[in-house]
């Protein structure tokens, strides 16, 4: 049986209408609802299912974030993870971290926690980078499979279907491996009240980035954040010829 490590991130809730700060330095986060990144929820669910199928013996959830990220970790524990690791960075540091720095931390955690499988969401809905899983695999020198639609763990290997443009690609990869999940692989469970209460007693280890040998000094400087331009009204034309001539006039074709 394997030990699974699953990464979770606290992000602005998907249903919130995002507002850019007036000074353009970022988005408004104060007093805005945050929750677990939806793809991380799906990753946790996949990990818990591995445990229910008796493939996984233990699930370690980890997060990198400020003290509020502890709640996100507790949700993972309430969904069925066994213990947690919380890498403490403040919100400003978190906002400045790049996928490379995160990947280095994730790789180190996979090593120190002796994980046989590392699961994550395919991307986080704030940064939208979609790079962490692949980078972590490269750092660990582990096989990787991203954007999973299905996962079948076979002991020293795994058969996966990946969502790609145009359909599904089936791969067989050796394990240990880094896997990232896509939307349709499962429907995450909600934590029941008894499990929420039980999660209070599960252990969470507090860690600093320095303990993982990672420098969190910013390597990326965000110059400006702005809303996309307001979409101009469209125009309905009578026929294809008119459409073509209008597009030519506008220099589009």
């Amino acid at each position, binding site marked *: 049986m394997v030990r699974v490590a699953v990464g979770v991130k606290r992000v602005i809730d998907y249903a919130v209408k995002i507002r850019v700060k007036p000074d353009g330095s970022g988005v408004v986060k104060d007093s805005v609802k945050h929750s677990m990144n939806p793809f991380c929820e799906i990753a946790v669910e996949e990990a818990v299912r591995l445990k229910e199928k008796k493939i996984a013996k233990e699930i370690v959830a980890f997060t990198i974030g400020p003290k509020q990220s502890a709640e996100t970790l507790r949700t993972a524990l309430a969904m069925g993870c066994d213990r947690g690791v919380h890498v403490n960075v403040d919100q400003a540091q978190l906002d400045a971290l790049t996928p490379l720095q995160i990947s280095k931390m994730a790789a180190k955690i996979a090593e120190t926690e002796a994980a046989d499988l590392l699961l994550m969401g395919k991307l986080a809905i704030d940064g939208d980078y979609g790079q962490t899983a692949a980078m972590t695999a490269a750092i660990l020198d582990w096989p990787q499979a991203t954007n999973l639609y299905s996962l079948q763990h076979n002991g020293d290997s795994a058969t996966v279907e990946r969502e790609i443009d145009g359909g599904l690609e089936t791969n067989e990869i050796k394990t240990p491996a880094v896997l990232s999940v896509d939307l349709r692989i499962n429907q995450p469970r*909600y*934590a029941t009240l008894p499990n929420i*209460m039980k999660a209070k007693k599960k252990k969470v280890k507090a860690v600093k980035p320095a303990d993982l040998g990672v420098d969190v000094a910013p390597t990326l400087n965000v110059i400006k954040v702005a809303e996309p331009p307001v979409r101009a009204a469209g125009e309905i034309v009578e026929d294809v010829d008119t459409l073509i001539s209008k597009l030519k006039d506008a220099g589009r074709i």
Partner: protein
Amino acid sequence: MLRSILGKSLRAIPKRAESEAVGAWGEIYGPEHLQMQDSLRKIIEQDINPNVPEWEKAGIYPAHEVMKKLGSAGFLGTSHPEEYGGMGLDYSYTVAVSETLGEIKCGGIPMSIGVQFEMATPALGKFGSETVCEEFLRPSIAGDKVACLGVSEVHAGSDVAQIKTTAKSDGDDYIINGQKMWITNGIQADWCCLLANTSDGPVHKSKSLICVPMDLPGVIRAKKIEKIGMWSSDTAQLWFEDVRVPKKYIIGEEGSGFIYQMIQFQQERIFAMASAISGLENCINETINYTRERQAFGKSVLDNQYIHFQLAELQTEVELLRALLYRVTAMYVNGEDATKLASMGKLKTGRLIREVADKCLQMWGGMGYTLENPVSQQFRDGRLASVGGGADEIMLQIICKLMDILPKGTKLV
């Protein structure tokens, strides 16, 4: 008086640990409450809200299905005893559930669920023998059996002491005769927490609470009442004709039913407060969104001072109600008598829902008068709050009594 009765309850009332002391004026929810609310919200968003329009049209919702889902997740027994499947948590958890239920996009379903865990079962949890708790409380907490509360009658709503349903002793049984009116869940319920006269004598010592299975011979679901709102909640008129029930199905002591019901009423009132708040806020927010988009006379409707000032006034009132809710909850958690504040909160809830719905509907104009609109939903569903669960006039009487301003010699029942 309540304290001495509660002192006689069979089970300890769950208290919060010393280390998590509740400040009477502060926020009462910790991380577990918020997590629990998130989970409940998911069930509401995935399994309940998408079906609300259909269930409203059908005039009924599948109570057994929904109760089972909620029961399996632990939401129907937050403060109920652990021996019977409850979580044994302090009352703030129950209030957190009630508040989140208010996010259901109609009034009928939260009301129905409220009956299940806050109106028909508290007395059972506090005073019920092992027999009744196994038979009725355990399956209600699990969501396997749907409960209803049988107190009101055609001629006795606010005047509870005047109910005429009798439960006459016959050997080891009671024979029940009478009728009940306005019974939420009455069409679907498996059992009824019934208030009946078990003896003659002074009106608040002659009554008992009895658990009555609804499939017994003589229990007739006489009529499903058509209402102006709360459509997805089935409301029934029930008849009881020589219904034979074993005496062991009584809750607590014979003759104490009236007092037990008064205690159940406190939770009913707190539930009314808690479950109203989300709907009120949602109504105001939807109205803000609508009036921001809607153009009239060269500007958005929201840009008129009359409109945005009114919305600010309404939101202020909602925050005041929320603050009162948390204060009442803190008192209840600390084992204090919250009757005065709970009655004030219930009074305010009924009146504020009417005010918010009415003013917001006006801001929506013609659209507000259509059926597929959150404001008209609130207008219809919310009107009940001033009437049911303790009419405004009864709340006023209670508050006056506790302020000691009723005319001398007033006999209040």
